[in-house]
């Protein structure tokens, strides 16, 4: 009888663990989650929040930086995405998540220089306290989060890479981000919601 009681207690305890909610802070956002707004410093000195963009239909939040070769390989494509979709209401919001202590190339001054040299048409923000990228669950640069603005908040619609060929924009077969934005704007189902890619770990 005692063993049965023990077993029951064990089952109850293990049940507790099995049903405890997943730790979202550690994992970051999943598709369908409401993304938090932030207030981060732009290269021009302004503080920027998503709520500043009254007419936006959504946001393409990209964690990127100066120092990563993958971020460099995608830089022009990020500029092109902003050109293409800002007018449709989906601007690019670039955020540098790296600590310049470990990556001097990603200092605020170097961000300013890069944004000017390459004529960035979008905000390039510094995650100074390194609080935003873990909240989103960004693991590497570049790492994209497409958000749709709704009455209940900014809903995460796509997480992952820009497209399926970092080496050559001309050889791309699937434009993950473009396809997701087009579908989102037309109210269609996004076919590919999550993709993986090699990138530089965030430091």
């Amino acid at each position, binding site marked *: 009888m005692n063993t049965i009681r023990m077993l029951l207690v064990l089952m109850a305890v293990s049940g507790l663990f099995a049903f405890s909610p997943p730790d979202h802070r550690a994992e970051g956002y999943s598709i369908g989650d409401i993304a938090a707004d932030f207030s981060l410093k732009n290269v021009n000195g302004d503080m920027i929040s998503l709520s500043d963009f009254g007419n936006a239909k959504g946001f393409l939040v990209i964690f990127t930086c100066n120092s990563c*070769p993958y971020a460099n390989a995608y830089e022009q494509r990020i500029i092109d995405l902003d050109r293409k979709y800002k007018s449709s209401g989906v601007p690019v919001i670039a955020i540098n998540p790296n600590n310049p202590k470990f990556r001097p190339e990603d200092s605020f001054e170097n961000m300013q220089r890069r944004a000017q040299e390459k004529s960035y048409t979008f905000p390039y923000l510094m995650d100074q306290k390194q609080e935003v990228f873990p909240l989103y669950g960004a693991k590497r640069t570049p790492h994209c989060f497409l958000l749709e603005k709704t009455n209940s908040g900014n809903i995460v619609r796509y997480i992952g890479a820009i497209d*399926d*060929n970092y*080496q050559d924009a001309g050889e791309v077969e699937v434009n993950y981000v473009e396809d997701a934005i087009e579908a989102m704007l037309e109210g269609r189902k996004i076919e590919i919601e999550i993709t993986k890619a090699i*990138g530089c770990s965030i430091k």
Partner: protein
Amino acid sequence: MRSIGFLMVFVTMVSCKPGEQSISNSFVDYEMAKPHQLLSTSYSDIPVYSFDEFEKLLKVHSQKTYVVNFWATWCKPCVKEIPEFEKLQNTYGDQQVEVVLVSLDFPNKVESQLLPFVENLNLKSQVILLDDPNQNRWIPKIDKDWSGAIPATLIFNADRREFYEKSFTFMSLEAELQDFLN
């Protein structure tokens, strides 16, 4: 029934007898997986693989324990831990352990970055260039939870397979390896 058991033990013993393995037990096997290019340093070859070919090498094909590290010369934490992996190869190489350094360098940086790096460190571990841009297709095949950030390491043998999305020191690497050798 019992005799079959004995027979199996006998066969296993024979096939494990050291010095009698006619099949190559190094990770890279050109017959099993064909590289689409072969790069050379002054002392070694670096095969270039697409993922489909590379994947064939991840199937268990010997008694060894393989420590497969994903890295690139542009990745600072990766470069920092390469000597730790090299030390593991030098320390455990004679105990059926093989370290494989899978470079994810950009193909157009091979001449200027990868080859000089390997040459300068005089790496004894096997180096491979994995050249397959469709990463979303192959990253989950290495591990379903891998975000794609490097460094990352896969350790496997006939009994176990573990994936680590993190940096290692020699000590932490050795501690993980012990679990595979015991």
